[in-house]
């Protein structure tokens, strides 16, 4: 792979805090290596801004290896940028060429208010999990791990759903700002396991109610979430969630309590 350097124009969303209005600011960065990650390019820009006595751009990031789910940039119209199955931190600059202009925005959804610049508040996801995204088992209650065999296929599917990193790209990408892919991944993860069975009906109902309360839109099966999910969570999970919900509706016996 040949390495090269490039100069870029960046249009980045700047917003002081959640109450103030934001706007785009234009920056020039020079001599960016094709080997940098996208966030390292931002590091370079921020160092440059600090040296110039200007305020750096706030952005969320932590593990920088694509698993913590903290990074969250909407790059040229794409959640986490143009690479398939990739978080922003794993996007690398060889995607771009000299002279490119890149527009970077925060996740936009009313349920994810902007904290500053590109940083958004995703605590609504925590509250959805609190509504039922767990199995009620106190420490010490467990039986032997092999006491209950689980069909390999179900375990694998459950794992595929549990691979969600809670980054919110699904919400960011969805024209309706719906959180259905996130919620359905959790509902599926737990519903596919026998351990999750006792609470499956009440879980799906409570999580959906919380999702609505948080101000996410509803799913209209557009599929942009699946296309942008860095972990390849399938919208089959949404079908499963719908089925779980229908099951809860038809059962009619579930009570609304934790």
């Amino acid at each position: 792979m040949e390495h090269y350097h490039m100069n870029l124009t960046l249009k980045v969303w700047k917003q002081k805090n959640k109450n103030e209005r934001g706007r785009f600011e234009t920056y020039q960065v020079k001599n960016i290596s094709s080997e940098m990650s996208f966030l390292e390019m931002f590091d370079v820009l921020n160092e440059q801004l600090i040296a110039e006595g200007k305020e750096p751009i706030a952005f969320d990031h932590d593990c920088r290896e694509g698993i913590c789910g903290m990074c969250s940039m909407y790059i040229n119209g794409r959640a986490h940028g143009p690479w398939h199955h990739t978080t922003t931190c794993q996007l690398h600059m060889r995607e771009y060429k000299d002279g490119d202009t890149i527009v970077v925005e925060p996740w936009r959804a009313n349920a994810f208010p902007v904290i500053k610049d590109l940083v958004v508040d995703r605590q609504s996801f925590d509250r959805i999990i609190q509504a039922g995204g767990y199995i009620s088992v106190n420490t010490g209650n467990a039986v032997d791990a092999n006491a209950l065999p689980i069909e390999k296929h179900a375990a694998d599917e459950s794992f595929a759903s549990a691979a969600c990193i809670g980054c919110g790209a699904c919400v960011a990408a969805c024209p309706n700002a719906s959180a259905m892919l996130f919620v359905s991944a959790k509902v599926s993860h737990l519903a596919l396991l026998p351990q999750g069975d006792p609470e499956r009906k009440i879980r799906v109902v409570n999580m959906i109610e919380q999702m609505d309360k948080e101000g996410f839109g509803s799913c209209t099966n557009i599929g942009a979430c699946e296309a942008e999910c860095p972990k390849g969570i399938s919208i089959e999970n949404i079908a499963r969630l719908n089925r779980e919900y229908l099951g809860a509706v038809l059962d009619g016996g579930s009570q609304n309590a934790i």
Partner: protein
Amino acid sequence: MSWKNYFSTSVGKKLQMSLTGLFLILFLIVHCYINAQIFYNDGGERFKEAAHFMGTNAVIRTIELGLFGFLILHIVQGLMLWSKNRSKRTVKYAVSAGNATSKWYSRSMALLGTLILLFLIVHLKAFWGPNRYSQTFGAGELDLFTMMRDEFQNIVYVVIYVLGCLSLAWHLVHGFFSAFQTLGLGMNKYKGMIKTVGIAFSIIVPFIFALMPIAFYLGWIS
């Protein structure tokens, strides 16, 4: 939780869309089957027979009431969902993903639906309205076949009908699969099957419908 609550969550509302949508799909099949009788080119004999049955049978007339109920629910709920969903992102993106991550028609269901609604108004005003009026207040059933033949001599009508069918086709391409997805059936081995059947349905049914005004206009049917 009461039934009302179940159907008032976002998923519950989608269930309403799905169930009413599926009912409308069933209606399309029946409607298409009956109207396709004209292609026998028998001067509308078979068509008239079927239309008479549909227009006078008590059971069908009762179902018709339900059909209108569901249609209105589908429209109202759909538009409400659309406007609600739009309100969830107050600050819009400066750059949008466009077609890179989703299909235009899946993002345009409200628009396509509205086009269909406009077409439907024209359509009902042309046939269903006068017929039912005449049945109730006038000289009984009208000759729908003749009405069609006369109506579709006008190129404007033909174009409106073809465009209406086109909107319907795109609406169905997304709507058919979406309805099953919402019922939780868009999974595993069913997924591909539903998608294929859905696309076939979305092409065949609107095509047959669109063929009717064209056939009259071009004089294939007399």
